[in-house]
């Protein structure tokens, strides 16, 4: 009897030890999202990255996430994750910058990565995407497809990412049609479907026949669809909303970065870096080219490939600014802090 008991106890101990070692082996990676994962845009795409990590590493990695975290609540959330044993924590909103810095200091053994920020620490890196590369491609498509030679561009706020997007779009369009025009409307919101729809309708009534947006709802595409005009999806493939109007979409694909980053933590080779990936790394990609004639598809695919392989840089100088001055080479720093328009943009940049 005692023998059996001893054997059972030993077995139990071994099992316990085995499961303990399994969970100690699994790396815990945690995500903090600013929006709901059901927003079908920004947070949704980051969550796709989490799913990719799960798929890639299986049992080796344990994941956790928190959605709808406001900037005010973010510090608590980061701290909770750090205490719960997360080894790497991703924060996906610009506004998380200061809270992350603070929590990173408190937990030197935990690694942090902050999307779209610029401040780093010994255990805090940043990552961002070169969305403007995709904007160059859609600029070329717009110039080919527009009959009036005018695009309507709905934008949110005058931050460098948005301004660089407008410039890259125009440079792409001008490479096809030097006289291409763009009408710009600032909606002063990231997200208000009705307002974005109003702006879209006004732009179409003012002679634009192709819509570009740097706001987050699908409303402008729906307006384009309704009026038999064209548009481009934002952040994710939105073809479902506008099967006849979406020409392509600039898709944020964070999966490759997250997989690489988690791999680095597993290897012990993780270092705080300022990652800024684009089409080459797969972080920015184009949704299938639809509703386009073959020659335009071919051109768009070639341009995408040229950007991917590094043969083409949308901001390769010389670039003429709106005020007529010429910049010989636009470096990364200039793009990340862009506060001027290129020549041909018929708008005054809000300061």
């Amino acid at each position, binding site marked *: 009897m005692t023998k059996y008991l001893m054997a059972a106890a030993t077995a139990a101990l071994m099992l316990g030890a085995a499961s303990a070692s399994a969970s100690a082996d699994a790396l815990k990676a945690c995500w903090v999202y600013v929006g*709901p994962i*059901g*927003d*079908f845009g920004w947070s*949704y795409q980051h969550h796709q990255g989490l799913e990719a990590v799960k798929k890639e590493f299986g049992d080796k990695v344990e994941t956790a996430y928190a959605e709808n975290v406001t900037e005010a609540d973010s510090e608590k959330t980061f701290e909770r994750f750090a205490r719960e044993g997360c080894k790497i924590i991703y924060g996906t909103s610009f506004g998380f910058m200061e809270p992350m810095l603070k929590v990173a200091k408190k937990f030197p053994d935990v690694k942090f990565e902050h999307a779209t920020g610029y401040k780093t620490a010994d255990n805090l890196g940043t990552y961002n995407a070169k969305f403007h590369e995709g904007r160059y491609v859609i600029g070329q498509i717009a110039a080919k497809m527009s009959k009036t030679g005018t695009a*309507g561009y709905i934008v949110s706020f005058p931050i460098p990412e948005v301004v660089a997007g407008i410039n890259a779009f125009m440079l792409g369009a001008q490479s096809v049609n030097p006289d291409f025009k763009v*009408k*710009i*409307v*600032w909606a*002063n*919101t990231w*997200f*208000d*479907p*009705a*307002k*974005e*729809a*109003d*702006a879209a*309708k*006004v*732009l179409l*009534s*003012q002679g*634009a026949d192709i819509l570009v947006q740097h706001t987050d*709802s*699908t*409303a402008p595409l*729906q307006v384009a669809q*309704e009026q038999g005009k064209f548009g481009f999806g934002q952040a994710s493939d939105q073809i*479902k*909303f506008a099967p006849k109007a979406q020409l392509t979409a600039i898709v944020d694909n964070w999966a490759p970065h997250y997989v690489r980053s988690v791999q680095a933590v597993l290897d012990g080779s993780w270092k705080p870096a300022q990652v800024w990936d684009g089409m080459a790394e797969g972080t920015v990609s184009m949704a299938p080219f639809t509703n386009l004639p073959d020659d335009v598809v071919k051109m768009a695919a070639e341009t995408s490939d040229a950007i991917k392989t590094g043969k083409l840089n949308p901001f390769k100088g010389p670039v003429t600014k709106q005020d007529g001055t010429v910049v010989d080479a636009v470096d990364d720093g200039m793009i990340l802090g862009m506060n001027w328009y290129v020549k041909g943009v*018929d*708008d*005054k940049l*809000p300061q």
Partner: protein
Amino acid sequence: MDILLVLLTIIMTAATPLLLAALGEMVTERSGVLNLGVEGMMVMGAVAGFGGAYATGNPWIGVLASIVAGMFMSLLFGFLTLTLLANQVATGLALTLLGLGLSALLGESFVGQPGVKLPSLGGIDPLVPFALFMVFAVGKFLFGTKMGLVIRAVGNSHTSAHALGYNVIGVRYVAVLFGGAMSGLAGGYLSIVYTPQWVENMTAGRGWIALALVVFASWLPFRILAGAYLFGTISILSFVLQAQGSGIPSQFLSSLPYLGTILALVVISGNKALTRRNTPASLGQPFVPDR
């Protein structure tokens, strides 16, 4: 000419949800009840409207669902403030928070799905003329019928109305439910007509604008019409100015609808006696019968 017609259609679309919600709230307030939960009722109307149209494929069922959802929310408000005598301001604010949260929860599976659009009749959404018709109907009802007179009496002096034998709480329930139905419809307009899709918080503050319109329009239906259309006109014109590259700072243009509408309505409310006559004297006060 053609372009003016196009712009006019855009303006009417932009003004209609404000007009519907403000008209409903005006009737509620005329009965002496201040329901600050317009935003919450609207957003519930939006999610229910989308859901109804999406599930059945029939946008008219969506319209009906949005009205029912708004009424359900307002019934909750009525029960808390009229039967249980809770504070109207606090309950209204809570109703907005509840609506925003509940709609996000209910609408989770609708996100990313294209909606069903209400077909337009001869280029005009049927709800646009309906809203205009309601301005006349509500005006006629409030100022030309006995029932309208009773509602206004209840809102001006609930004790007198009670002494005359009117069922104050019953009348207020009806007015609150009408407000809920109109707010719900305004929300449904957003998710079925304006932009056929559902996303969290898609009303984006329109309920608050409707609330402000009621006050600045001195509780008069035709001033609400003027206010809603003025707001729509200025917001659309500010986009037109931007699209034409006027060089006027966009932040200024964005604030113009608010500034312009308030300014205009303050000017037309210059007649103090008229404003005082039209402000419901018992607004926001709970009524306890038989004391």
